């Protein structure tokens, strides 16, 4: 088991590195690429404060998707909300002491897990049942759904059917902070769950999961509608101005 523990320790170091470095790189590149023209989809808020509100509605409620397709919205929202709750619940494995709000979330985590799986199943069903969505789905779109569902199912099974030593898991992860390798319980299902999560972390910066940071950089949503009031000029466009009358 010591060998497996070591493998997993390095796997998580690697996954965390790829996730963080990859995301930092991607986000830096989004942030550094100029948006030379004002292109908010109108009607759009005219102030920064209004933009923050619009963004919040997009992030929390998926407002545009709600207008676009009710089925995708309901499944998509259930999935993301479930994922959010589950993530909060899992924070207890990574922090000591456990913050009070995280303690409060604990009883709901299970429902979060179920919601995740229901939402994902609905989204996956659409990939088969709706001809338009089937047409646009690449193998990777199916695989990412499979990965997420497997993570959810294996997690719920660990919780309900094949119990594992959660205290040991927490000890393992807290140990990683101090570069100490402490034993991980050798339950196959737990190991599968962790392996899949590590895969997800590694895939994140190299797949469509980039939509999460991407949304914040989407010019059609994050720009204020004030082009007549404020001149907006990208650095590369400014260079064209030299020598102009």
């Amino acid at each position, binding site marked *: 088991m010591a060998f497996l523990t070591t493998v997993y320790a390095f796997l998580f170091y690697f996954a965390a590195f790829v996730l963080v470095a990859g995301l930092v790189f991607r986000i830096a590149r989004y942030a550094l690429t100029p948006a030379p023209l*004002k292109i908010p*989809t109108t009607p759009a808020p005219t102030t920064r404060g209004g933009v923050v509100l619009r963004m919040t509605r997009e992030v929390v409620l998926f407002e545009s998707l709600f207008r676009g397709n009710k089925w995708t919205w309901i499944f998509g929202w259930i999935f993301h909300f479930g994922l959010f709750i589950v993530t909060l619940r899992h924070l207890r494995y990574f922090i000591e002491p456990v913050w009070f709000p995280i303690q409060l979330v604990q009883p709901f985590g299970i429902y979060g897990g179920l919601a995740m799986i229901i939402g994902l199943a609905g989204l996956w069903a659409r990939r088969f049942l709706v001809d338009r969505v089937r*047409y*646009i789905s690449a193998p*990777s779109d199916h695989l990412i759904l499979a990965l997420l569902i497997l993570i959810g199912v294996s997690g719920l099974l660990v919780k309900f059917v094949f119990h594992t030593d959660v205290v040991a898991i927490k000890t393992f992860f807290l140990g990683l902070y101090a570069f100490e390798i402490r034993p991980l319980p050798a339950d196959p299902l737990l190991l599968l769950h962790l392996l899949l999560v590590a895969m997800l972390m590694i895939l994140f910066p190299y797949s469509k999961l*980039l939509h999460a940071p991407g949304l914040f950089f989407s010019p059609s949503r994050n720009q204020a509608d004030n082009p007549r009031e404020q*001149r907006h000029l990208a650095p590369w466009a400014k260079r064209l101005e030299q020598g102009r009358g």
Partner: protein
Amino acid sequence: MAKSAFRVPPLSQYTEVPAIMPGAMAQSAPFVSKAEFQEPLGFPGELVDDWQARAIAKMGELLGKYRSLRVYLDACVKCGACTDKCHYFLGTSDPRNMPVGRQDLLRKVYRRYFTWSGRLFPRLVGAEDLTREMLDDWYSYFHQCSQCRRCSVFCPLGIDTAEISMAAREILDSIGLGQKYCNEIIGKVYKVGNNLGLPGPALRHTLEGLEEDVYDDTGVRVRYPIDQEGAEILLVTPSADFFAEPHVDGLIGYGKVLHESGISWTLSSHASEAANFGMFIGSYDNMRQIALRIREAAIQLKVKRIVFGECGHAWRVAYSFLNTLAGPWDFLDPRYPVPQHICEFTYDLIQQGRLTFDKSLNDDKVLTYHDSCNVARASRMGDMPGGQFEIPRAIIRATCNHFHEMDEDTIRDRTFCCGGGGGLLTDDLIELRVKGAKPRMDALNNVMQEKGVTHMVAICAICKSQFTKVLPYYGMEMEQILSLHQLVSNAIVLTPGPDDEADEDDDDDQPDDDPDQE
């Protein structure tokens, strides 16, 4: 019904989402530009030998210049919310006309050459090489997008396929595979000053003719000045307004409103075009060069304000980009936004009670209003978000008694493009234009049946030309499409000047209507 070599889709009460038919529009492509139209714009005359390498290099360059392109190519989650939103998909059933299907043509190549997953596992992530076949698909399907932004309204990530289409057309131009219609027109603007290639003398002649017509009609001398130095307002309007029906009736209307305002104004032969086709081909350089003509005209004529006539994509470039491309406008009167839309101008006068209308003069019509896509989703009028919807409607209500809205899924920011926007208003794309108009035709037909609507009003030169052309395909009359300022023109009560005949029997009568309700 007009004869056609293709099947015109039958009208239905509500536009249904069709089952996909791959390849249904693969044959559609506009004429390729010739060297003589390419070179003045700074593009190679014909497809270059090393087009593949140069296209990839250009894509890399654009990825560094446009955050929209970079984020949109990465962020799509293939949720499908956009798949039934494009009028071209609804009218043609071709899945590559689903916004995401269209984006994927570029995205597959992006993934292949610019992402690790696409380099290592192309099949898995749907990445593809840039082959000649792919290039032809680009040319075909990126010329089946009118850059109307309807897809961007419903996308959870705000992905705007218009941005993708513009980038794709810029890449195509950069390797010598340009579109004749757009590039020839831009050349005319550089040479003559407007899309139609109408030189200064022709414009002056037309405008003199208009003055006579209006005088004959109303007994009031309304002026249509051009190149008048020292005028207060520079009016920039799409060149279609100078001669085609129903556009010209709109121009007559602007002149009457400006006449009543008492503010001096002028057109310019140098900037005799509001539309800016540089946007359609995604070329910042060309868009900027065209926009700078307006700056030059404003300086040369020493005007204080700039007002734009009725035109959709033109208003997008004017409202959203003009300050960026040709600003700052610090030499103009700071009390007014630069530029202003003629509707904002007319609306302000109505608010101030300075225009008098006899609404009954429009009583022979029952109206509905078509929100032009780029006005609706890429610009604004007035101070409030959504003013672009309210202000034109307020003008209609001030000038007409009978007005009905179309189905709410097809108006305001959910409006359907006319089917001819974005550089597609050319006869070589007529099949696409007719089919793409179906959602709008369905909604119009609906209010015609249920509310007795007789006419549809628009504030875009492309919409007006497109509808004039496609209405007959659907068994309707081309005259059913009107300019908004044509309604204004019909109903406005003109104030005679000192040299006008005092006692005309028509149109000078005092109105029996309250001028400024609203």
